[in-house]
């Protein structure tokens, strides 16, 4: 079964500390993985996708097929990074996008 697991509901760090939001997935084929973010009072939006291998707002995520993980990392957290982060998986074609339960990141001054 296709599944996305985000084990942490809440991650609380201080400004300047490194951040890693965990995401593990279960999928038999070759999925596309994404991170979406929802800032306070804003719409959910795409943060990054694994295929593009880019860094957005200092965040990166590497797909590890061996560990079936797609953890989101940032070396130095900023207060403006406080938001809800969702990991998502797409199996290609007309499969639906599957979201994890989300992790709330709180960055304290």
């Amino acid at each position, binding site marked *: 079964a296709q599944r996305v697991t985000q084990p942490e509901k809440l991650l609380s760090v201080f400004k300047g500390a490194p951040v890693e939001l965990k995401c593990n997935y279960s999928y038999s084929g070759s999925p596309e993985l994404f991170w979406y973010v929802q800032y306070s009072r804003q*719409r*959910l939006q795409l943060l990054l996708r694994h295929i593009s291998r880019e860094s957005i707002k200092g965040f990166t995520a590497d797909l590890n097929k061996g560990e079936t993980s797609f953890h989101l990392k940032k070396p130095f957290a900023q207060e403006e990074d406080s938001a809800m982060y969702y990991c998502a998986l797409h199996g290609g074609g007309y499969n*639906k996008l599957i979201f994890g*339960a989300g992790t709330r990141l709180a960055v304290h001054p």
Partner: protein
Amino acid sequence: GAGVSQSPSNKVTEKGKDVELRCDPISGHTALYWYRQRLGQGLEFLIYFQGNSAPDKSGLPSDRFSAERTGESVSTLTIQRTQQEDSAVYLCASSSVYEQFFGPGTRLTVL
């Protein structure tokens, strides 16, 4: 260009009443999703439309919930005989290939 829009933005209703929520997707997007987001909680998938295929209704919590979409145009989510536990933000999203674009949501409050 125009993004995904939803109406109404807020809806307050009495327990037992029916409500209808509307979603206008981005033009040309074949896929449309409905989600529910309770206060402080994550996304809860409700239903998925893809073109003219049969919708994936696996996330609908009860038979009080239904949704329609005509072709690749607007969609309506209907909740019959609303209950207090239906209170939440209902989000709509549309996509063409992989990226989902979300609407602002409809905040439903059932008194």
